[in-house]
C-alpha cells in the first residue's frame, strides 16, 4: 500500500461521515453518497480493479475511467444543486410576496409613528 492510499481513503470516509452528520437530505441522496464513498474506497484500495474495469469497457487506464465517471457524477450533482436552488428561490419569492401583501400600506393608512 502506498502512502497516498490511506490518505485518500481517510478523506473519503471523513467526507461521507460529514455528509451524514451535518448535511441533512433525503434517503436517496444518502444512499447515493454511501455508494459513491464505498466505490471510492474500493477503487483506491484496489487500483487493479479499476484497471480491469477500464480495460473491460475500453478506456485503457483505470485512472482515466475514474476521472470520466467523476466528471459525469460532478455534472449531475451540479444540476441537482441548480434545480434545488431554483426551487428554493421560488419558495423565497412566495414567502416574500405573501409578507409584502400582508403588510401592504394603503393610501388612506396613517403615516407611521416616528
Amino acid at each position, binding site marked *: 500500500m502506498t502512502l497516498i492510499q490511506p490518505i485518500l481513503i481517510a478523506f473519503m470516509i471523513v467526507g461521507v461521515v460529514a455528509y451524514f452528520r451535518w448535511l441533512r437530505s433525503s434517503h436517496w441522496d444518502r444512499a447515493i453518497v454511501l455508494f459513491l464513498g464505498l466505490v471510492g474506497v474500493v477503487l483506491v484500495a484496489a487500483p487493479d480493479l479499476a484497471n480491469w474495469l477500464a480495460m473491460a469497457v475500453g478506456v485503457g487506464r483505470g485512472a482515466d475511467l475514474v476521472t470520466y465517471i467523476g466528471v459525469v457524477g460532478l455534472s449531475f450533482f451540479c444540476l441537482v444543486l441548480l*434545480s434545488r436552488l431554483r426551487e428554493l428561490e421560488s419558495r423565497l419569492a412566495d414567502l416574500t*410576496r405573501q409578507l409584502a*401583501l400582508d403588510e*401592504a400600506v394603503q393610501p388612506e393608512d396613517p403615516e407611521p409613528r416616528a
Partner: protein
Amino acid sequence: MNSTWVIVPAYNEALVLPSVLEPVRAAGYEIVVVDDGSDDLTFERARSLGVHALRHRVNLGQGAALRTGMEYAVARGADFLVHFDADGQHRAEEIEKLVAPVAAGRADIAVGSRFLDSRGSIEAPRSKRAALRVGAFLNGLLTGVWLSDVHNGFRALSREAAQRIHLTQSGYAHATEIISQARARGLRIAEVSVNIRYTDYSKQKGQPLASAFSIVWDLLAGKLQR
C-alpha cells in the same frame, strides 16, 4: 367606472420616484409601488406619496415585483393593469393610449413598442436599437409571437389576462414569459407605439447587453424545469 391600476416595481428609486409618480397620479390612476428590497428609502418615499406601497423584504427581481403588484391590484378590484417603470422612461400621458385597445376589448394585453412607427426609433441610441432588434428576434423564436420591440416594460393587461398569467420568472425574463403565456392561453396581444425617454438616469439604470444572455439562460432553465 373602470379602474386602471398602475404597477410600479421599484428598486433603489427613492430619488426619482416622486417626479415619476406625480404625473401618473395627476391623471387619476391608482398606483401600486412594489419596493423590491431596496437599500434606499424607496418604500418610505412611496408611503409618503400616498400610494399603495408594498415592500419585498429581500430583492427578488422585477418579474417578482410585478407579480406581487398584480396580485394586489387584482385582489382590490382592478379592471386594467399597467406595468410602468420607476426610472422615468415611460410617459404617464401614454398610459391611456396603451390601455385603449384593452379597454375597447380588441386585445387582452397591449405592449408598448418603440419601433412600431418611425417616431419612436429616432430617440433610441443606435447601439441599443440593434441590441433590441436581436432581442425581439430571440423573443420571437422563444414565444412564437413576432413583436417589433421587446423588454421595454410598458404594458397594459385586462383583469382576466392578469389573472391567467402566472409569472414564474423573477428576473427580467418575465417580459418574454408574459408573451409566451399569453400565446399559450389564447390571449390577444396588441402593440401600441410609445415613446421611451432616454435620460442619463434611465440609461444608467438600464440593463447591459450581457444581461440578455442571463435572460435567455433563465428562460431555458425555466422551460427545462417544467
